[in-house]
């Protein structure tokens, strides 16, 4: 396969990953690294570098649309970004010393967990919680336009737990070159009791900043190859922009099931390849 053919195939695969990621809301980033390592036989470090770059592109592209709708909370985002960027630095340093086989196994476990999380029904939202002292001091409580029309107020809880979880999410992002949106939403939904709409959009907002923190280290370590990152970034961006546009609610249920099965399958593959050393 010469460079032109390689570029076209990688761009097509990345386009599909971005499209499915946007349509299902599961994010395309998680399938990119297995795609590049298993099917295109790229070293996992090149794959992680290319994936991280595409994560910045999709997150910033989507965030641009979200911020205008008034769902995301820039104060919550900014405060938690302290945790995610510090975590991302640690993760990126770890990635440079960790054996690639261990990276593959950890990646596989994260894929399996993402697939599991996407099948689990979301617990009902708790509304009208009393204000928490720390969250109030940090001016995190906010409001957003509700479905019933009018404005819904919310009080943020569990700031220390959320902050710690966010550090973990950042470390995973820096270690594996993914957005770890799933962990971020988990921290904000479960620990901090932020309404789902606000947590999803705010988390998307933070993913780009988190990824930028490890991108510098990846770049200087030579993980970001232009020939590989170019088709990946352009493909994923085009796919996710199209996916966000054609999003039809009725059809995503089956698609979500199929995509989560694909993620689980790739997770098992990554673990197997990591264990036998075929990565």
């Amino acid at each position: 396969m010469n460079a032109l053919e390689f570029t076209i195939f990688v761009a097509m695969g990345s386009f599909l990953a971005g499209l499915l990621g946007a349509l299902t809301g599961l994010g395309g980033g998680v399938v990119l690294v297995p795609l590049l390592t298993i099917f295109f036989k790229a070293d996992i470090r090149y794959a992680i570098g290319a994936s991280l770059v595409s994560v910045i592109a999709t997150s910033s592209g989507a965030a641009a649309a979200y911020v205008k709708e008034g769902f995301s909370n820039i104060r919550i985002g900014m405060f938690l970004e302290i945790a995610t960027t510090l975590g991302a630095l640690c993760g990126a340093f770890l990635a440079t010393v960790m054996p690639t086989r261990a990276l593959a196994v950890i990646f596989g476990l994260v894929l399996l967990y993402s697939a599991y999380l996407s099948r689990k029904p979301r617990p009902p939202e708790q509304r009208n919680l009393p204000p928490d002292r720390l969250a109030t001091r940090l001016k995190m409580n906010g409001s957003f336009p509700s479905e019933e029309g009018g404005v819904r107020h919310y009080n943020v809880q569990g700031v220390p737990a959320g902050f710690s979880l966010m550090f973990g999410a950042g470390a995973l992002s820096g270690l594996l070159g993914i957005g770890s949106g799933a962990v971020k939403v988990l921290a904000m939904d479960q620990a901090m009791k932020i309404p789902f709409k606000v947590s999803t959009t705010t988390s998307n907002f933070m993913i780009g900043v988190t990824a930028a923190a490890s991108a510098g280290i990846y770049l200087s370590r030579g993980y970001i190859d232009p020939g590989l990152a170019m088709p990946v970034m352009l493909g994923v961006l085009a796919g996710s922009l199209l996916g966000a546009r054609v999003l039809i609610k009725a059809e995503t249920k089956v698609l979500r099931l199929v995509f989560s099965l694909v993620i689980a399958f790739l997770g098992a593959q990554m673990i197997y390849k990591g264990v036998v050393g075929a990565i």
Partner: protein
Amino acid sequence: MSKWSDQKIEEIIGNLLRAGVMSSAAIVFAGGVIYLLKHGASHPDYHVFQGEPPDLSTLAGIFHNAFRLHGRGIIQLGLLLLIATPVARVAFSIWGFAAEHDRMYMLFATIVLVILLYSLLGVGSAF
């Protein structure tokens, strides 16, 4: 009052992000065309990790390469712009919080900015 101000800031941030991503994609695409015209028939090998040479992994090297219109250098320049987009977003937030007289969040945004700049500029040094 503060709510209106938040809204305004978020709108500018949204436009900033879109402009950054779109111009970076355009630069990466242009670099990709040049790269493929020159090296389309070569056989790239990503199976064995070698790391990128300094002229594609340091700021000075990338700028030097891009301004000589090398395809791979131009792609890296576009990716640098992409990485810089969220950084600019954080820098702009500092200004936004200052306009709202919110010292606490000016501090938080500054901490995040320092971490980002440390990663982007503090690199190149061996660790």
